[in-house]
Each structure stands twice: as C-alpha cells, then as structure tokens.
C-alpha cells in the first residue's frame, strides 16, 4: 500500500487524510502530485469522473479541508443558472478569505465574473496559494450559456491568477466537449469500489457499542445478499444501518453470542431478503420498516406502493381509454373489420385482434386523430353517447393525468393527435 508522501504538507495531516479516504490512496496521491506545493501553479482544470458514489465529492472535499487549501465548493444542480452559480462562487470566496460581512454581489456574465474574481483574489492573501474551485455535477454546465464551460476550463488563463478548476461528473469527458473546441482538462477516472473495498469502508463506521469484528461479520452477510443488486455505497450504508438492530437482536436477548455467526446468519438472512424486496425498491419507507421491526409483525400487512396500482375511473373515461388503446395499437385498416360489422363474429375478431397486437406492442403506441378515437368510442359503448362537452373535457383530463399524451401540439384546432400512454395490464384491469 503506497503511503501518501508529499514534501509540501506535514506528515501528520497526510496520515489523517489517509485514514479518512480508504481505498482511494492512489487517486489522492495523483491529485497531490498535480496540485504540487501551495504556491505553485497547478494544472488549469481537472476533470474527474466515475460512477455514482465512487467517492469523488467526498475525496475532494476531505482532501481540500484536511490540507486546508483555499477552495470553493459548488453544486451545479443547486445553482441552476449561470448567474446563481457565479454569484455563489464569489460569495464563498469572500467568506473563505475570512471576511466577516458578505455583501451581495451581482454578476450576470462571465466577463463580470472574471473582473470581480480578480478583485476578490487581489484583495485577499490568496495570491501566494492556489485557489481551487470545485464544480460538482458539472454535467449541468452544458445546459448553461455556451461560454460558461470553456470559460471555467481556462479560468487560470483568463484571470491570470493562481486558480485551478476541478469538475466532478458521472459522465465521460467526451460528452462534454463543446463543438467550438476548448481547452482540454486533465481527466482522471475514479473506478468503482470492489466488493473488498465496500467491505472495508462499510466496516469502518461501526457503532461504538459493538466490536469491529462483529460489525464486519454483519457487513459480510449484508453484502452477500445485496451485492448482486446494488453497489451503491450510500444505499448499502443506509441498508446496513436499517437492519443492524435486527441482527443484534439474538445477542441482546442472550440467545447467541457475538462469535456465533452461523446462528446470526440464519436469523438475519430471510429478513434481509425481505428488505431487498421492499425497502430497497422504496415500496415501503424506511420509517415504516423500522416500525415494523419493532412490532415484529409481518410486512404483508403493509402494502407497498405498487400494491395500490388500481385506478378508479368514471364510466366514459374507461371507455375513452380503451378506445384510445385500441386506436394506438391497431392499424387503421383493421378498424373497419373490427368495429363495423358488430353483430355476429365478435369472438373471431377478438382473437385476431390479440394476434396482431403482439407484434404492434413492440413498436409502441402510434398517434391517432381525435375523430378516430371518438368513432371507436361510439362503436364500443353499447348505448348511444351524445358528444357532449363533458366527453371532450374528459379527454383533456386524461391527458393531464398522463394516461393519454398529446402529439404535435402545433395547432389545437385542426385535428389534435393523441397517443395512449398506458400498458396492456392497465387496460385489462380497467376493462374488467
């Protein structure tokens, strides 16, 4: 295991840093060597990518705070417009230099930003240190003005100050590159944690009242169940915390001792499987799960989200939806055959309909005009339907409920076209 070594920083800090970021030593040492010493100019922009919860944000944040490097940390989702983003950076800059009063700043464009940034840096004792601007979830930058991303990439050059921009993202750099070309940042990849890594990290934060070995054994079992479906560290940690009480139960009751892993495993395994089906999918919430554990009841009594999938609809809405479904999945040429000769061969046509549908289902719903929908409606409803305003308003209300969707909204008046947005199962449930 390579120890972190760098001449510029005290060894104690480095040691602490190493203990805080397990399994990311190589990345940290690379970053440190890029950063260099405090006063040295660093690479203008660094792009770090990796899958969800591979520790990008965490590593950067711990690195910068432990070594007390001046930095600004901004989440691009939170500051959704360029103006908010730039102003937030300037605000944080003011506060990180220790200025007491943070006066509101106004900064609309990148040009203003560069000017204000120069002022801010010049006014403080930051000149001799590299300032780091970390932009988390940088993929949002692509949706802002075109000059923002290239501007950040060469901020060092533009401001002529000692500054390094670090972009964090979950997607690769190739998807960022604007077509007008830009300065290429130094890219760096954070690989996923392996199962060994996960084991190590999860075991690290064991509750103080039980031994590390005991908790590690628990984590081992947990990973055995969940690793197949979930590798998200955050999610796993959540699940570990939720189910630990249940695992400890026999020990607390005195039925088993801490070493008796086999017994404990037998106790917890079905429980974890149940958790995988419910909590992990958010069918029931974690608080409900906890209450369930306390009561010791069966989760069967608590119905999950998907159990309530039945929808009550008014009489004509049901028929409208069925008509829409038929219009979406049947080709126009078969309409005559299905709906015109209504007496007699209904069974046969039904059979043929089903046969044809299987192929159409793979293609997805097709748009259909309003007239066709109504024509089918009239033919499938037994008694006469008057074309009242209520029927028309029901169509729009179905659209707002996202059961139908409107296609091509260019003109409402001449023949709006719709698509049916529900599945066959849903229609079956309604048609009953």
């Amino acid at each position: 295991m390579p120890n972190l070594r760098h001449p510029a920083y005290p060894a104690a800090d480095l040691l602490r840093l190493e203990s805080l970021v397990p399994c990311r030593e190589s990345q940290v040492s690379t970053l440190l060597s890029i950063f260099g010493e405090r006063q040295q100019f660093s690479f203008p922009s660094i792009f770090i990518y990796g899958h969800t919860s591979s520790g990008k944000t965490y590593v950067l944040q711990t690195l910068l705070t432990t070594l007390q490097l001046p930095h600004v940390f901004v989440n691009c989702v939170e500051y959704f417009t360029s103006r908010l983003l730039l102003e937030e950076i300037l605000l944080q800059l003011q506060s990180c230099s220790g200025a007491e009063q943070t006066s509101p700043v106004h900064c609309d464009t990148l040009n203003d930003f560069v000017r204000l940034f120069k002022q801010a840096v010049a006014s403080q004792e930051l000149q001799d240190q590299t300032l780091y601007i970390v932009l988390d979830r940088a993929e949002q930058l692509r949706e802002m003005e075109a000059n923002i991303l290239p501007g950040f990439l060469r901020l060092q050059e533009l401001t002529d100050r000692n500054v390094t921009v670090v972009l964090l993202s979950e997607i690769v750099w190739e998807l960022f590159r604007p077509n007008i070309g830009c300065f290429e940042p130094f890219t760096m990849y954070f690989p996923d944690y392996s199962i060994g890594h996960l084991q190590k990290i999860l075991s690290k934060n064991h509750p103080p009242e039980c031994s590390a070995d005991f908790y590690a054994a628990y984590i081992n079992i947990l990973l055995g169940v969940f690793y197949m479906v979930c590798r998200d560290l955050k999610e796993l940690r959540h699940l570990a915390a939720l189910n630990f009480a249940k695992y400890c139960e026999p020990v607390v009751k005195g039925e088993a001792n801490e070493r008796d892993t086999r017994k404990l495993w037998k106790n917890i395994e079905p429980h974890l499987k149940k958790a995988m089906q419910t909590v992990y999918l958010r069918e029931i919430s974690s608080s409900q799960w906890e209450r369930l554990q306390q009561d010791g009841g069966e989760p069967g009594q608590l119905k999950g989200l998907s159990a309530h999938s039945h929808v009550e609809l008014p009489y004509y809405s049901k028929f409208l939806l069925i008509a829409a479904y038929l219009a979406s999945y049947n080709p126009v040429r078969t309409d005559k055959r299905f709906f015109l000769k209504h007496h007699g061969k209904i069974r046969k046509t039904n059979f043929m309909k089903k046969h044809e549908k299987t192929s159409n289902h793979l293609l997805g719903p097709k748009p259909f005009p309003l007239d066709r929908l109504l024509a089918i409606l009239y033919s499938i409803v037994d008694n006469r339907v008057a074309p009242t305003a209520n029927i028309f308003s029901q169509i729009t209300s179905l659209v707002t409920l996202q059961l139908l969707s409107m296609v091509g909204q260019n003109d409402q008046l001449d023949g709006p076209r719709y698509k049916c947005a529900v599945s066959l199962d849903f229609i079956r449930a309604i048609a009953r």
Partner: protein
Amino acid sequence: QQIQEDMNKQLLDSLVSFLSRSHSDFREKTTEWTCEMKFREIPTAALVLGVNVTDHALTFRGLSDVLQDNITPYVALLEAKDCPGIKNLMQKLMGQLMSCDVDVDSLEDEDGVQVSQNRIRCSMASLISWYESVTKKTDSETPSKKRNSSSRHWQSPPVVVIFKDMESFTTKVLQDFIVISSQHIHELPLVLIFGIATSPMIIHRLLPHSVSSLLCIELFQSLSCKEHLSTIIDKLLLTSQFPFKLGGKVLQVLINIFLYHDFSVQNFVKGFQLCIVEHFYSQPLSVLCCHLADIKKRAYSLSHDQCENIRRLPSFRRYVEKQESGKQIELLTNDSFLKEETEKLLEDIHVYHENYVSILRCLHVFTSSLPKYPLGKQIRELHCACLENRVWETEEYESCLQLARMLNKTDLVTMLQQCVEILMSSSGKKFDKTVGKLKGFLTQFQDLEAEASQERDVSISSQKELQRKTDLYHLQKTLLELKESRRSKKLTKFEMLRFEVVDYIDRLVRKYLVPADDRTLHEIVYFNAAAVLRGHLNAAPRTALHTALNNPHWYLRNQALKCDGGGISNKAPDICIVYKLHLECGRLINLVDWLEAFSTVVMAAEEPNADAASSDHVDDIIHARFIRAVSELELLGFIKPSKQKTDHVARLTWGGC
C-alpha cells in the same frame, strides 16, 4: 337564498370532517418524521386522491389550512402549471413561504419581505438563511408573544411543500428539486407531499432510483369519491332538515354525470346548487319551500295570484277533484280557506319526508344484504327507485321480497335490530308502534330459538326410532312422513314468523314509500325539470352548432326558414346553405363545385328563369357571399385549407365527432 348558504356550509363542514378524518393519521406521522433525519431522506407523503381532479383544489386548501393550524406555519402549495422550470419553482416556493410568514407575524418585517420580493436570489441558500432567521426570531426574540400564537407549533416547524398534481410536473424539475433539497435537509426540515391522481406507480415512473432513494415515502389513500358522494347524498338529501328536494329524474341525471363523466363531488354539488337556483327562479310558488316553522307565516302572506297559481298545479287539481263538491267550491273560490288547506298539505309533506327517510333506511338494510342486489347496493339507487315510481310494483321489489323470505334467522334478527335502531333515532313519534311491533318480532324469534332446541330433541329421538326399523317399506314411509312433518312444522314456526316480518315490512313500504309525485303540492318542494338541468350541465356544443346550421328555424324563430324534408331552402342564411352542401361532400371538397352548387341554390328562388342565360357565369355578389360563408365555416372549425390538392378544402368533422 339563505337556504343555499346553509347548504354550502353544511357541505364544507362535511368536507372538512372528511379531510380531518383522512389526514388525522397523517398529522401524527409528521411529528415522527422530523425525529428521523439521520439518513438524509426527505420525508414524503404520497397522497392518492383519485381521478376527480376538480375536487382536489378544495382538498388541498383544506389540508394546508389544517396543517397551518396544527403543525407548521410554513406551507407552500405548488402547481405544475406554475413551475415549468426549476427556477420558477423556487421562485414560487419562496414567494409563498415568505408570504405565509407575513401572515403569521403580521407586520413586523414587512419591509424585509418587500425587498426580497423584488430581486431575491432564488436559491436554496437564501431560503435556508430566511428559515434560520425566522425560527431564531420565533424562539429568542419574543418568546412570550409567540407562545400564544404558535404554541402549537414546535421549536423548528417543518416546511411543508405540497405538489398538487404530481403527474403534470416535468421529471427534471422534480428530480432537481429533490436532489437540491436532500442536500440541505439538515438545515431545512422539509416535508414533501405529492398529490397523486392515478396510482403511486407514477412516482417510480417519474423519478429514477437514484432520486427516489432520497425520499422516505409513505402512502395515504383518501376516501374513494364514490363513498364521498354517498356521504354527501346521505347528509343533503336523506334528511328532513332541508325542505328542498330533488325529483327522481333530476337526481338520476346528476348521479349519471357523476358516475359516467367526472367523478367530481364538486360538480355534483354545483349541479345541486344549480337545481336550487333554477327551482326558486322558475317556480313562483317556491316561497313556500321553507322550514316548517315559516310555513304558516308565508302561507298567510300569499297574494291572490299566488293562490291562483296553487290552484293551477296539477297535483292540487287532482286533490280537489277527489274532495266533495262543497269543499271543491270552497277551495277554488275562497283564498283564505285555500291558504289553510295549503298549510295543512305542506305539513303533511313534511311529515311524509320524515317517515320516508327512516323507512327508506330500513328497506335499505334489508335489500343491501340480499344476493345480487336487485334494488341496488347503495341507498341512492334505492332512493331513485322509490322516487321514480311505486317501488312495490316493480319486478325488482318482488324478487327482493322473495329473497327476503329465504333469509336465515341470524341475518334477519340483526336486520331487525338495525331497523329498530334507525327508527328509534328518527325524530318522528309515529314510529313508536312500529318499533313495538318490530321488537315483538325480535322476542318472538328468541322464543323460537328456545323452542327450536326442544324441537331438535324431538327430531333426534325420531331419528333414533328410524334407526331401529329395518323394514325397507317402513323406512321409506317414515322418511316421507318425517319430511312432510318437518316441512309443515317449519312453516308453522320459523317460516311463518319470517313471512310475517316480510309482510310487515312490505306494508310499511306501501304505506310510507309512496312516490313524491303522488303527494299533493309536491311541485313546491320537488325540482323535477331534468331536461333543463341536463341542458345546463351536460352541454353538447357540437350538437347545438349542428342544429343551428342545419335547422336555422330552431334558433332564429323565423317561420319562413322552416323547411321540411331534406331540401335546402334558399331563404336560409348563406352559411347554412354552405354547411348543408358541405355535409354531402367527401373528405376533400372542390371549391368550384361547391360554389356552383351554392349559386344554383341561391339563384333557384331569385330568378328561376334567368339561370339558362347565365349558367356558366356566376354573379360577383354571390361569389362574395360564398367566400364569406366558407371563411365563416373555417372559423367555426368545420373545414381547413388543404395542401394536398389545389382549390380544395379538407373537411374536419364527421357526424358525431
């Protein structure tokens, strides 16, 4: 009228009680949630409300009021149409939160809010700082003053954000908002409420797993709208408190609109109110439709014209014809005598209502448990059936009685007990005898039970006897005898009593559930103009337009326009002629042919002999008239210009659609 206001208030009361019922458990939950923040999840309530979108506004208003009263002053209601982007969402959210803050501590920081309204930085950071300042102020600055106003709220009240219509929000906005707020959940205790109209699966469809894992969702199901409707009907129609009643057909129309079209309780109540207005507006005698206490006063203040109106009522005429001749003359000539008689009749109607409702409930107890529900499962169906015609003459009622005669004892006894309870709770004194009778039945049943046990002994002994006999012929004979005796025995004991009960119920029904149309002066209290109501509520714009264009006489009331058969009259307005001609065409209409036909029709009357001379030349004026009519049709949306063929227009409507 004040009655209508009464009605509104009652409705609101019932709604609020309904709300508090469905959300009382919810409120308890919120208190638990705030303790549970360790996992960085946003507590979320998914509120499944059913598809009656129009009712939701009221529900949410009630909910936010309840929340504001009991839990937190910070409630924001967000609607999808206000929030096309995350920016608008934040603006709206902050605006609402800050203004509700103003509501709570009235005027202290008005200047601060005014500044913020103008150019606030709409970000989470500013929201948090606002929240911190507000809460700090609440518990440090003026603790004594705050105690009284917000003692019910706790130290750090959660901020509740309600998404009214989850389905219509764009995915991105929701995702971004949830991601942002999950990052600040420690500083800002946020609670989300999703209003869901369809099914909770929508959450999974809208949000990817990475986002939904940030939420801690609990599901709450509100009462189904059908149940809601039955409570409303129960409260409004099946009481004797309100003098105004709906006739059978009208009620049927309202319920049909509800069930077939929109499931909206709101609309049902609106329709009901419309009925009230229509009734009081169109029926001059509706002054008499008031509470029992006022009838006397109002009856005496009737003018002569109004008395004449009463005499003209068909039900009153029927009544008069039944009286003896002296009284007839008196009724038809003497106003004051008429007034007294009217008062008496109205009181009769009032009494009839009281009896009607309780007996209806009794009958409902019987019919609702029968297999296949011949008279309907809900009390409203029974109510409609009873209003419509004499219920005992219908086939369904017959089958009901047949089925009731086959009920087993325990069911029958419980039903009787329920009936007794209903009758006891009703205000009328006249039911004492009925209650006594029913109680008599009950005791008889109990006696029967005692007898039955004895009887069982007898039958067991006879069976023992049977076992002893070995002769086949004898065996057969005794078996037959036994069967015979058993049948006759049962008929004498339990079955007899059962018949008696059913007959008694039947008699009650015949006595009290007389349809309202048979009552004298029912026109005053009942609103029966179903056709009018249907015209108002179930508008058919397409049909109206078609009638106007196809048959201009209908609206213009000009005798000259009245045409018979399918012919096209040339006296009709141009647009009607053009419309009728266009009905005969296919999908694409050739403008030249159309113009030709138009000019033929118009010329036919003006100069029937001149058409030979100028057959190929069309008059400029006629040309202009044609063009105007066609563009009017285009404006109405019947045709549109087509690019497929030159000089053609496309037809847009076909028959009913």
